[in-house]
């Protein structure tokens, strides 16, 4: 049986793991770090990916969570003033040096954030890489804030790494898992 053509007609690499559903590709835990960088180039067989971040707690109470992308495997991350656009309900930016995923995360007892980021067609150098983040933030008063953010890297390029960082202060702790959509 001929392999199904992949991007630009190239044969899709044979992968014994391929099958319907999600495949866990990588996972990690971060404690007191300046950022969390996740390289994606080893997973080019998966066109779309899902990054799940659990129990993210910032060092600074009320810090925002940002994301940036890379096209050189994580050696450098794009941070130009007009590299990104993002939009959430009621806020957004068409020209920014980061993607604001969550505007404010508390770090008190029981607080923190969880989010699921879908990364679309990261392997296609002909289109802007797009992502969709679904976020939930909890506070010690048992209120929750839910948001959805759509964002793009404003350049046609392959995206092969993503960075999560705080607007200020370190990331005190977070757990993450990366999945590939089959």
């Amino acid at each position, binding site marked *: 049986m001929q392999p199904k053509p992949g991007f630009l007609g190239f044969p899709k690499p044979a992968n014994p793991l391929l099958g319907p559903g999600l495949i866990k590709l990588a996972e990690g835990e*971060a404690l007191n770090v300046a950022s969390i960088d996740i*390289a994606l180039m080893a997973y080019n067989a998966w066109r779309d990916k899902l990054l799940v971040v659990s129990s993210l707690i910032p060092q600074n109470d009320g810090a925002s969570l940002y994301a940036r992308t890379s096209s050189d495997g994580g050696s450098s991350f794009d941070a130009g003033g007009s590299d990104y656009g993002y939009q959430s309900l009621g806020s957004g930016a068409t020209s920014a040096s980061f993607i604001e995923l969550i505007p404010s995360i508390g770090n008190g007892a029981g607080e923190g954030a969880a989010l699921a980021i879908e990364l679309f067609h990261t392997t296609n150098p002909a289109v802007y890489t797009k992502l969709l983040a679904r976020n939930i933030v909890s506070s010690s008063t048992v209120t929750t804030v839910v948001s959805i953010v759509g964002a793009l890297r404003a350049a046609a390029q392959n995206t092969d790494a993503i960075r999560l960082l705080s*607007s200020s202060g*370190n990331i005190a702790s977070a757990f993450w898992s990366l999945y590939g959509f089959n």
Partner: protein
Amino acid sequence: MIYTKEDVAPARNVNGKDVALSDAERDAIAAEWSANEARDSTMSRTAELEKKRAFAMMSLQERVLAEAILDPDAPQPVKDYAAELAKGSP
């Protein structure tokens, strides 16, 4: 707040493993954090000024109504007057 490299963690987490940052990298991160906080603080002040400006341009009746809506602890006479305003018959 002005951050310095001592405020920055000694490492990034790269693919689940900590990778040490150089002093230059930590300096750059500290500078960005300081700039972000300064920008956010300016935006907050601007938003607060906008609110005050809008309030200053309201009529007396609008102010009473706004105070009663925004402040659940507003004095009862203010709430009563606001309720009358809301009905359109102050």
